[in-house]
């Protein structure tokens, strides 16, 4: 992939995170949060998206994000009070941004949203949303904000996008960047302002352009108002015969008058220059900041020229702040916080003057520093690498169990010593495995975040009012499970929205509040992740469900079922109680699909319903699909692994009464029920001569029981799941394979697939390696 496409990819990944953050913050505000950080974070998120989108030429996205950002800015500035803000609109806009992002990602034309844009434009124009006294002061000049790598927004491509966006904004007004290279160095008003004189010698490697970096991007990472002059040194340009136009031969000498520390300047080049590509020389401290009021206006003007809040307003800002007492200044400071780190130097200096304000200014700065630190300790790692690590750990687990088997055959005195070491090794291996699993673990937030949008859209389609409450979003599970969660959860929420929660009128008639509530809760319980979807709707209509089940022949006409048993019918195939078959659900392919998916993951789903009060679906899943607890069994010469989750109990074959039906089908009586019995060796075609001694009672996905006769139970252990599909194809009767302690492969049985294999009687269609052509 070429570097630009790669960057773009990263940008879209970041967009997902930013969109998630945006939605969460807006959600919090919609639910009544008054935390200014929620507003700021939402603003930063949309801002970062806009910046990145600009850098990659996603014009539709930029246009929309720009209007959206502007209206959020009204909140940030206090021009629109939080309680008056149309968060429902904002949430729909955040959905629209998500659509635009995915359109841009897939290179599809975006759906224009003039309705939303118009509504956004109205925000802030509404009567009554008059400016609070400090509002114009606190409104940071929009061009200043981009210069600030947002406090806790990811400092990745989006930030780079910000820089690019800023360069565009500055092409006119920042003379240092825009002016052509004359003989005279470009001099800006910065020469007159306080700060130290710093000389920067920038000697980029010749591949600068190929790294998609332009000199103006490099300069843009410096505060424009600090740049005194930029001199281009063209002495390294080779002769015309040897010149390669894609090489950069320019060197630059930049003179700064700045308050930035050397480290600070270095860090600003993180994205653009390697450390050996520039030198920093600090000359001397400039004169004290006595004449501050005189110089700050032009400096500020150069910082905020293109915005509607013009330079003179920025100057007013400093003047007003200077006049305000410490208390007032302190009050104003929190609003300034997002822009503070890159505030034009003179303004920042004014804020710092009064002692109280200084303290107030430092607090958010510390937070920002802490935020940066948090970022520094987390690393983006390619999932592929983690998978490789996981594989390697799997290898070690296998080698270790191999060692254990070898050691058993040693003479006792040697064994005793070695065993101790092996014991330690196995403890460490287990620990290593846990840690690697922890690295792969992700909070369920990744999936939960998609649900509010689903609920909003469904609520609109169905004409219902629903509040979604998320809890335990930070509960972590392995990424293999995360990937599988989205579908069942979507179905469950749909089901609750469609069948559970009533329309507002019905709810009022039932004495409930018109707004329904759906709770989505995740938690760890007994080594599993348990996710529940609870609604306060009408509950399962048992009579209708039962009637339908009877008409479909699922339940006998005179069969009596307990209420709980009726509820379970919701998981039966082809049953739906929705009177109107809607777009949302009602085709009877809902909960049975969910159940099948969940069970194929080794999970369970259950339902509790209280008529008139609501319904609760509970989903319990293993924490990972990468390892499973299995029972190792032997049949003939072959060994198999059967997941413990499928095993109900084991018993001796000899003590079990077995009866023969037609065609060699055997059945056994187990807990008063007639249970089919299959001999594993015959079904799986095991080599050697099977001599069955043990019956394993296993459970199928449908909840039926089945007896599986095997020769021997070898043991119980955690096994690493290895795909058979990767290099071979589907194997009937098995879901995957694993490697046992002796290095040999054992198939992991899939009870349902095995039963299908047994039922076909003859050989199923030959498994074949699927190759193109």
């Amino acid at each position: 992939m070429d570097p630009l496409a790669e960057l773009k990819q990263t940008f879209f990944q970041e967009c997902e995170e930013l969109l998630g953050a945006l939605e969460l913050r807006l959600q919090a505000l919609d639910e009544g949060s008054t935390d200014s950080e929620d507003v700021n974070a939402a603003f930063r998120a949309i801002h970062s998206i806009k910046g990145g989108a600009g850098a990659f030429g996603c014009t539709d996205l930029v246009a929309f994000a720009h209007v959206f950002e502007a209206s959020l800015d009204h909140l940030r500035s206090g021009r629109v009070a939080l309680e008056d803000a149309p968060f429902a609109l904002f949430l729909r806009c955040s959905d629209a941004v998500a659509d635009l992002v995915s359109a841009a990602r897939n290179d599809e034309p975006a759906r224009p949203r003039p309705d939303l844009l118009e509504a956004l434009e109205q925000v802030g124009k509404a009567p009554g949303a008059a400016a609070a006294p400090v509002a114009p002061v606190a409104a940071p000049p929009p061009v200043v904000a981009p210069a600030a790598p947002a406090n806790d927004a990811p400092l990745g491509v989006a930030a780079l996008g910000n820089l690019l966006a800023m360069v565009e904004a500055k092409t006119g007004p920042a003379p240092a960047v825009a002016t052509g290279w004359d003989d005279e160095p470009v001099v800006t008003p910065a020469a007159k302002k306080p700060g130290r004189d710093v000389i920067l010698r920038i000697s980029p490697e010749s591949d600068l352009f190929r790294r998609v970096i332009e000199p103006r991007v490099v300069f843009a990472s410096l505060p424009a108002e600090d740049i005194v002059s930029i001199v281009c040194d063209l002495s390294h340009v080779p002769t015309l015969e040897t010149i390669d136009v894609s090489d950069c031969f320019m060197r630059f000498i930049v003179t700064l008058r700045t308050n930035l520390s050397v480290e600070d300047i270095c860090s600003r080049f993180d994205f653009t220059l390697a450390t050996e590509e520039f030198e920093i020389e600090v000359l001397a401290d400039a004169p004290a900041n006595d004449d501050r009021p005189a110089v700050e206006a032009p400096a500020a003007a150069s910082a905020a020229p293109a915005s509607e809040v013009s330079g003179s307003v920025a100057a007013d800002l400093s003047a007003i702040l200077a006049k305000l007492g410490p208390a007032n200044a302190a009050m104003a400071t929190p609003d300034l916080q997002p822009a503070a780190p890159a505030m034009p130097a003179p303004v920042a200096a004014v804020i710092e003057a009064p002692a109280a304000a200084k303290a107030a200014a430092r607090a958010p700065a510390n937070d920002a520093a802490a935020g940066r630190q948090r970022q520094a300790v987390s690393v983006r790692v390619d999932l592929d690498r983690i998978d490789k690590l996981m594989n390697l750990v799997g290898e070690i687990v296998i080698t270790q169990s191999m060692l254990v088997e070898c050691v058993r055959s040693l003479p006792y005195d040697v064994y005793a010593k070695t065993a101790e070491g092996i014991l330690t090794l196995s403890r460490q291996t287990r620990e290593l495995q846990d840690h690697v699993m922890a690295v792969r673990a992700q909070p369920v937030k990744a999936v939960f975040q998609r649900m509010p949008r689903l609920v909003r859209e469904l609520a609109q389609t169905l004409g219902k009012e629903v509040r979604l409450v998320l809890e335990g979003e930070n509960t972590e599970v392995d990424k293999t499970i995360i990937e599988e969660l989205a579908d069942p959860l979507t179905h469950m929420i749909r089901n609750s929205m469609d069948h559970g929660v009533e329309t507002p009128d019905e709810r009022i008639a039932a004495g409930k509040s018109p707004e329904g509530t759906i709770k989505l809760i995740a938690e760890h319980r007994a080594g599993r992740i348990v996710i529940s979807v609870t609604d306060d709707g009408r509950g399962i209509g048992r009579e209708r469900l039962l009637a339908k089940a009877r008409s479909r022949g699922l339940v006998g006409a005179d069969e009596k079922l307990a209420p709980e048993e009726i509820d379970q019918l919701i998981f039966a195939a082809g049953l739906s109680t929705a009177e109107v078959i809607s777009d949302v659900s009602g085709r009877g392919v809902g909960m049975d699909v969910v159940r099948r998916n969940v069970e194929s993951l080794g999970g369970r789903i259950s339902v509790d319903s209280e008529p008139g009060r609501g319904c609760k679906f509970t989903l319990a899943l293993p924490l990972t699909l990468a390892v499973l607890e299995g029972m190792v069994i032997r049949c003939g010469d072959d060994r198999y692994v059967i997941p413990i989750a499928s095993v109900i109990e084991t018993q001796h074959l000899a003590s079990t009464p077995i009866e023969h039906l037609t065609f060699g089908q055997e059945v056994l009586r187990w807990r008063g029920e007639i249970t089919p019995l299959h001999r594993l060796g015959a079904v799986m075609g095991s080599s050697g001569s099977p001599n069955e001694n043990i019956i394993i009672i296993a459970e199928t996905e449908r909840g039926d029981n089945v007896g599986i006769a095997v020769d021997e139970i070898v043991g119980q252990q955690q096994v690493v799941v290895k795909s058979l599909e990767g290099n071979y194809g589907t194997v009937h009767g098995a879901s995957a394979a694993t490697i046992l302690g002796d290095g040999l492969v054992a198939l992991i049985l899939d009870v349902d697939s095995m039963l299908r294999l047994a039922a076909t009687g003859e050989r199923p269609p030959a498994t074949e390696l699927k190759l193109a052509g």
Partner: protein
Amino acid sequence: MTLQLGEKHFSSAQPESAARRIVTFKVGDRTFGIDVGMVREIKGWQATTPLPHAAPHVRGVLNLRGVILAVYDLRTSIGLGTTDATATHVIVVVDIEDKVAGLLVDSVSDIVDVPVSAVRPAPDLERDEHGLIEGLVLLDTDIVALLDLAAVIRDGGVEAPVAKLARAS
């Protein structure tokens, strides 16, 4: 990078000397070959775990440093029965498209350079119904049959007539 390009130019500039580097191996007294580029490694026989109801030429799966690998018996594919595998038998681990597979043979003989012009198309033999052989090379006194690995693995000499028809159309 430039150097590599230069080499490529060099070799393609002289097509008469273009050669295929072939790994040859034996099953019984017959010699087969595949392009060396497809061979990932060569390892001694190792017990496999049989797969239920797999095609006859699928010997089963084994663990190649943590990866599950299916092993195909070339002897079965060419209609000479099942190899009675011992420690002296060899598994040629090959890359086919995006998969890795093992080919069970008796022994690996040699690596030879064969001029491209020396490869003759396989005669349209009645017996090779599965198109396992891609070409023939005469090497000293031996006839080396170059294998179409994908066909070996896909068909394994047991392809049903229906499937064959489907493929032909």
